């Protein structure tokens, strides 16, 4: 599931848990009674692996772990935490970090690397990595030139979902470029269904949208520079990307319910209202995890009533804003490196991919193992983009939290302000001011 979805849900859970557990707080820290000694591991021993997956995802990941145990004879003790950052923080502080963690936020990987908590990949793991992942995906596990991690589970935020029935009624095909998309929008509007629905009230879908437009229009190098605030938000490229975005959002007829309703639509509603009868909109923009919401919350079937097209390229070749989980070692342990090397192999990817709900960036994975055509297509765009070097992690996850990941301020708020006012220059200035404060400049 996408990082953002779990994040917003995580906050809700956290607050619920706080309210219930507050009076019981004096009782002791949960997780104290975990077995230690796992850290020592060694040949044929045991390692501890931490990740965010629970429920069905945990079961599926267990298939990967079993495959590893079978091959290496090393037992794996799996621990999951919804809030991996906090979990790792306390475990590291307590002196018993898990041997391997699969980290969903690149920002967390960077801060752990900066603290010196991560262990560099061994030569064997490095070799496995180079054999199976494109340089573009390899880089997603590196910090300042040092390779710490292996990108294992991939997600795309460059998918745009549509209601096939509405497209058929309007007599249009999925667009393959930005300008074509604007024309398609016009035709679809004329057919009586507004073109796009987006969860603007949550903020992050707008940020993701902007990241796609920026990556497609300014290119990966500029994207990197903006991520690290090497170039200011007042840069011409930002203003031009905002103006491009405005070509879609300034037209009230394009938006389900117009701008005022769009600003009140949350992510889940933006998906469900695209697949109700009659639909309130023809398309909904967000990443591949939209498929999960369609399956869980609507009557529509992914692959039939619901399909997606790639975020339309603006200039030249297409690029992908990605997300995913990176495996890193936190202890200096041979078995941990062996496990990371295993994660890079097509066998590890296949163990989960064939069950479904999993996209692998692995180049050597046979695409036919995916159980459905949609996952196969998403995997293809991700591997293609990583081969051409045009894949980048979600930019907002790389920012300080106050700027990139907090509802009601920073990027989330400014993007909402932007689609309300359409004033690119003013928003760029405001973003720059926020970014400066957040980066402590």
């Amino acid at each position, binding site marked *: 599931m996408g990082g953002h979805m779990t994040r917003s849900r995580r906050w809700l859970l956290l607050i619920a848990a706080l309210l219930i557990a507050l009076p019981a707080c004096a009782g002791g820290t949960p997780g104290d009674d975990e077995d230690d000694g796992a850290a020592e591991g060694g040949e044929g021993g045991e390692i501890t692996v931490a990740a965010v997956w629970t429920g069905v995802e945990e079961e599926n990941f267990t298939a990967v772990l079993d495959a590893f145990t079978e091959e290496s004879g090393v037992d794996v003790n799996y621990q999951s935490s919804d809030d991996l950052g906090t979990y790792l923080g306390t475990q590291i502080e307590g002196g018993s970090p898990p041997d391997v963690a699969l980290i969903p936020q690149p920002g967390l990987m960077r801060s752990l690397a900066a603290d010196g908590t991560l262990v560099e990949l061994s030569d064997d793991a490095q070799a496995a990595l180079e054999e199976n992942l494109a340089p573009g995906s390899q880089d997603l596990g590196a910090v300042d030139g040092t390779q710490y991690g292996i990108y294992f589970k991939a997600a795309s935020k460059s998918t745009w979902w549509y209601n096939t029935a509405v497209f058929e*009624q309007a007599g249009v095909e999925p667009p393959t470029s930005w300008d074509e998309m604007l024309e398609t929008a016009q035709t679809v509007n*004329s057919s009586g269904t507004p073109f796009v629905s987006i969860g603007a009230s949550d903020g992050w879908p707008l940020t993701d949208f902007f990241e796609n437009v920026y990556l497609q229009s300014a290119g990966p190098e500029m994207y990197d520079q903006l991520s690290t605030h090497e170039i200011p938000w007042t840069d011409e490229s930002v203003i031009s990307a905002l103006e491009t975005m405005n070509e879609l959002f300034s037209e009230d007829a394009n938006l389900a319910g117009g701008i005022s309703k769009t600003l*009140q639509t*949350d992510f889940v509603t933006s998906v469900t209202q695209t697949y109700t009868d009659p639909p309130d909109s023809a398309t909904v923009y967000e990443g591949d995890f939209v498929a999960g919401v369609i399956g869980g919350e609507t009557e529509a079937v992914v692959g039939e009533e619901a399909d997606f097209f790639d975020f339309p390229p603006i200039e030249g070749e297409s690029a992908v804003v990605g997300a995913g989980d990176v495996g890193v070692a936190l202890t200096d342990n041979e078995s941990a490196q062996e496990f990371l090397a295993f994660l890079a192999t097509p066998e590890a990817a296949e163990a989960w991919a064939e069950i479904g709900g999993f996209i692998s960036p692995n180049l050597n994975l046979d695409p036919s193992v995916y159980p459905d055509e949609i996952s196969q297509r998403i995997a293809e765009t991700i591997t293609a983009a990583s081969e051409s070097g045009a894949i980048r992690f979600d930019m907002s996850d790389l920012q300080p939290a106050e700027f990139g990941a907090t509802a009601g301020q920073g990027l989330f708020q400014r993007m909402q302000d932007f689609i309300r006012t359409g004033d690119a220059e003013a928003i760029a200035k405001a973003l720059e001011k926020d970014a400066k404060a957040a980066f402590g400049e």
Partner: protein
Amino acid sequence: MAVASSDVSAKSKSRRPRPKRPGGRRPLVALAFLLPALILLGALVVYPLVDTIAQSFQDQDTRQFIGLENYRRALDRDNTITALKNTLIWVILVPGLITGGGLIFAVLTERVRYGTAVKVILFMPMAISALSVGVIWRVMYEQDPDRGLVNAVIGAGVDTVKGQGAYPNATLSGEQDLEQPNAKAAVTSNQELAVGDTVTFGLVSITDEEVPADAEQAVAPEGNEGAITAVVWRDFKPGGGTAGEIEEEEVGLPNVTMELLDQSGEVVASETTGSDGSATFEDPGGGPFTARVAASNFDEGFQGFAWLAPALVTPAIIGAFVWGGIGFAVVVIGAGLAALPRDLLEAARTDGATEWQVFRMITVPLMAPILGVVFITMTINVLKLFDIVYVTAPGGSINAANVVALDMWRTSFQARQFGIGAAIAVFLFLMVIPIMVLNLRRFRRDES
């Protein structure tokens, strides 16, 4: 936390002047008994309080003393200012509303036959946690009248008066000699019409479902002697088609109200289109005329108020909170009313006082201490307000609905700016102090 600590200290202090104190001569024994409580208080109240105040003067990373920098930064934030303003609004409005409302309900329920049943119903929301109250009202306040109960009730009233047009979302398609000043307005032809002329109106943004089943292929009108003919059609076929041209597969729109206007802009005739979208104005008289698609065709009915949009969100949440809190006031005040000395009320009535005078001169003054308790409890509840705002306000309105406790949490734990968060916590603490002083005085008075 601060609330709890002052409460307890208020009680223990006011006990001291009592004449008889068991074990008063043995301070060590007393201390031994107090120790567990003191340790808990120290660890859970005093230490966090002191540490929060300390943090508010420190840089969060280096822990260096930076004076009032965190306070300056907090007051520089629009969110904090909104939070302070909103908390002020809450404190001014809500305790009064709940105490006053509770008193009125309590007095009235005393007088009706099934008063207890009414009280039970009023008290029921108290059994629901504030979190659930927020969830319930978030749905109640939904803008879509099909989902939100509040708008459904209003809509039921409004729609019976106003009604809905045949094609609420339709707009003018491009490339035609027509004008529509804004969405939902009438579409007027720029053409001057005389008897025998024809005029066409192409509309789009009409879904397949909105087109009636009896609609037929639209045909370009031919001049009719002695009449003006108008055709309204759906200027869309799969793929879009050419705007402004009547094409194969494009149907006429039935049930459209057409109006014919003379030069002064008066409506001289009105017709409804048939299944092929045509309307004929027989014998309109001398011209010239203009024709238009009446605005009533585009009436979309009641769309619901955006209760949870930034402009209305605070009053809306106040409504939900009062709903959840008034039961408490009714029951507490009701209990006080039951304990009122009846003879005083009877005496007043015998002396010829009206019911209003009895209420104002006898009931209210006698009830003052209880009203005070309700008022102060509610003030404290409102100051520490968090959950209901967090749950009820959607993401786009959370800034507009912000209150101090919520701002403190969001700043500290979402934005991870602990220094500024601590400064906001201190603001909250300062706001609670006057209420504590008031409470303390009241305790002393009660004891003496």
